[in-house]
C-alpha cells in the first residue's frame, strides 16, 4: 500500500510535468496564448514565493521569515549577486529567531 501510494504520486507528478512539455507541440496554441505562457510561469513563481514568505499552512508565518525575505529582496533589487541575496535572507531570519523573534 505504501509503495503503491508513492508510485501513484510519482507517476502522476511525472505525467503532469511531461504533459506540459509534450502538449506544447501537440496543441496549436494561438500567438496570444503563447505570449501569456512566460507571464503565467512568472505569476505562479511569484505566488509561490510570496505565499512561502508570508504563510505557514493557513496562518501567518510570523516576523522572522518575512523579514529575512524582505532583506533578500532589497539586496536583489540593488542587484547584489544571487548568493548574497540567499545567504542574507537566511542569516537575517536565523538571527531574528536566535533573538527570540517568532
Amino acid at each position, binding site marked *: 500500500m*505504501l509503495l*503503491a*501510494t*508513492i*508510485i501513484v*504520486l*510519482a507517476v*502522476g*507528478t511525472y505525467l*503532469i*510535468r*511531461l*504533459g*506540459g*512539455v*509534450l*502538449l506544447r507541440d501537440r496543441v496549436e496554441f494561438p500567438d496570444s496564448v503563447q505570449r*501569456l505562457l*512566460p*507571464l*503565467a*510561469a*512568472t*505569476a*505562479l*513563481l*511569484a*505566488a*509561490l*514565493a*510570496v*505565499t*512561502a*514568505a*508570508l*504563510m505557514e*499552512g*493557513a*496562518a501567518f*508565518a510570523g516576523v522572522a*521569515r518575512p523579514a*529575512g*525575505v524582505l*532583506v*533578500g*529582496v532589497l539586496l*536583489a*533589487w540593488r542587484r547584489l*549577486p*544571487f*548568493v548574497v*541575496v*540567499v*545567504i542574507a*535572507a*537566511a*542569516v537575517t*531570519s*536565523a*538571527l531574528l529567531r536566535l533573538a527570540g523573534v517568532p
Partner: protein
Amino acid sequence: MTSSRTPADRRLLRDAAAIAAAMVAVGASFGAITIAYDLPTWVPFAMSTLVFAGGAQFLAVGLIAAGNPVAAIFAGLLLNARHLPFGLTVSEVIGPRLRDRLIGSHLMTDEVVAFTLAEQDPSRRRRTYWLIGVTLFTFWNIGTLLGVLLGGAAGDPATLGLDAAFPAGLIALILPSLRDRTTRRVALSGAAIAVLLTPVVPAGLPVLCALAGLAAVFLPSRRRKDP
C-alpha cells in the same frame, strides 16, 4: 559541460552551489522527518528520486504517516499541478528530442524554471535548465541520505533561516522580469490572490488561482495620462 567556461557560466555555477547547499539542508530535514514518522527507510529515497518535488514530499509523508494515503496522493498532485503550465513554458528550452524531454521533465522544479526564465539567450537557457536541474536532483538526494543517517541531528531548516532563503531566491530570479509593467501587474495580482486564498482553500490551489492574475494583461495599459 563542454570545455570553455565563460564568466556567465561561473556565475551560474556559483548560484547553483548556493541553492544546492540549501537543498542539502532541506533534503536532510525531509529524510529526518520521514524516519521520525517511523516510515521504512526506503520511503524517503523512493520519494526523493521518483517524486522529486519538495513541497509535495513533505505534505505526502505527513498524510501517509497520519494513515491517509489517498489524501497524500490527491494533495501531492494538486500541489504539483503547477508543473503543467511550467512544462508548457520550458518545453522549447528542453528541446525536441524525446530522450531530453523524458529526462528533462523529471528535473522540473520551481527553482529550475525560475533560473531558466531568468536567462534571455536560448542556448544559455538550455544550459541553465540542465545544469540547475541535475544539480538540484543530485543534492536533494544527497540531503535526503544525510537526513536518514543523521536523524534528529539533521536539525530544523528554520533554525538556519532556510525557509526565508528559498522565497528570497525565487523573488531575486523573477525580479528583473518585473521591470516590465504587464509582467509586474500579473505577478503582483497573482501573488495577492494566492496569499488571500491560502487560509481558505487546500494547499496547492492558491498558487494555481494566481493564474487569474493573467487578467491584469487585459487592463487598459495607458490609464495614467500624467508624465
